[in-house]
């Protein structure tokens, strides 16, 4: 379920093709993935999952896989 939410957030914020393979979604590969979009991604994740993401954690959320790993390890996620 979380995977689907993260996928949809990235598709919306980064204006991605819905059929894109999420393995390829990385700030290095996606031209639109700048600091402003990063802020929007973080805000969307906070809102959808009801948690706060510190700036020191946010800098590492640079790919779909990193975001999933972060959520899996977040203490506020059941």
């Amino acid at each position, binding site marked *: 379920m979380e995977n689907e939410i993260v996928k949809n957030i990235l598709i*919306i914020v980064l204006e991605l093709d819905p059929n894109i393979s999420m393995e390829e979604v990385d700030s290095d590969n996606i031209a639109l993935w700048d600091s402003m979009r990063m802020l929007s991604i*973080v805000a969307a994740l*906070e*809102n959808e999952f009801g948690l*706060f993401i510190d*700036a020191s954690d946010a800098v590492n959320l640079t790919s779909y896989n990193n975001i999933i790993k972060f959520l899996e390890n977040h203490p506020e996620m059941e």
Partner: protein
Amino acid sequence: MSLSFLEASKIVAADNELGTESFVLATSGQTEKLEVFIKAASIQRGFNSDYKILPYNTLQQYVASPSFIETHHVFVLFPWDVIPEGDWRSGVTLREINEKEISLGVNNFIGKLKQFSSRSVLYVPASMLPLTCNLGISHFFELHVQGALLKEGAEVLSADFFSLSSYLSYGSPFSGKYLSQISDAIVACVPGQHPMPKKILVTDFDNVMWRGVVGEDGADDIQCSNEGAGYIHFIYQSYLLKLKSEGALIAGVTRNDFDVAVLPFRQGNTLFKERDFVSLLASYNSKSAQIQALSHNLNITLDSIIFVDDNPLEIEEVTRALPAVECLMFPEKNEDAPAFFLHLQQRFNFSRMTDEDKQRTELYKTRFKATEVSSASGADLSGYLQSLDMTLKVIKCDASNYKRALQLINKTNQFNLNGIKISEEQFLKEVNSGMMLYSYALTDKFGDHGQICSIIVSDAGVISHFAMSCRVFQRKIEYMVLLLLAESLCVEKFIFLFNKTEKNMPFQLFIGESEVAVGEEGVMLDIRLFVNANQAVSGLFNVEVVGEK
């Protein structure tokens, strides 16, 4: 309605042909993460938002030297916008701060706000940085800012809307958890979106103006004094008096005989008097029909009415029939009262009062005509009744469990077949001669209502006593109990030993609505016709039979 990011995005992505409203969102922090939520909230309210934002951390400069002064401004303020020394991002100042300086600063800021002729102010009462090493004085400064803004008409939002972590990390003071709620508050400030203050409060009587049911308990036993169970009703009446003195109109609407309904006022039992009402309607017509008539007669639009009742069925009926009327449940527990009164204050939020306001009730009374209330039955509640998950427990009473059932017959006046009391001795004699006492208890999703209906009937279908508590009117229980009796007795007709009394109008109406024939034996109800006409009622109830059927 609170939206998630994905829900808001979906709303924004969908095409619409709505008009556009423009405003300036004036706040000191970063607002980017609000954007999709503001747009979605606007669309939900029927327009697209086109708003300008200020560059980050320029609010102070902006209010000193504004642009777009003719455009509506929605200010979202934090304490440090008014007292910059309280800004977390600056760290604690070593400079000594005194009260005079704070007052000057607050007045100065508010003075600058007044240059914006069209403005709304939202205030998030977040904690400030400590301004002094004296806890009391620091706290006083926070309250001083809030009080000054409130006096200028600011709406105070929840302190939870502020996130210190987000503010320090990103310069955005808005908590990610509440972006939807914050955006709703902003969008609600756009001109044309703010709900108009209400003009008239329409109040129910039983268990709202007083504790108790005047038709059952009598005027002497209802409670609305400043002690005991009646205390909250005393407070409510005193608030209605205050509302009336400041220009609101108060009307009463109750399902009752008029003479019974006004008894507590005429006996001097109440703080709020009969003369304080602009109109008082008591009938057995639906409340929506009564409110509709009131609206027409006083020439007041339905959206300027707020209706207060303790019965969720009445609330539901009015909501369905008159969606423009705002309906509010009277608090069941005293702990819920502050939120209830706060809601009323928000709806009757008068900024100024004139002599005409103080006399408004009398002015309306002088042009008040007799109100004709339509006999329309009100909104169809079948769907709502279905959702109540009602269970009717049928108890065939015997010598061990008849007392409550008998008490109901002797205490109930309104839905009562004939008003004839029956003593225990008489009852036991009747049981010996073959009469049966059935008691019915109701539970639903709101809880256990206890025993609410009693019937004494012979195996030939002669009903000598039939009483039902007024607390459970409109639920079709009277129909259901007769359907159940019909099933168990296997007779062709019921014979009601009916008698019209001064107080049993609800039963008279029930008889009037049913296909009855009046004969020598009594009022007769053809069971086959009755069952055919009311079969759908069975679907509203789960039935449990206790003991012998």
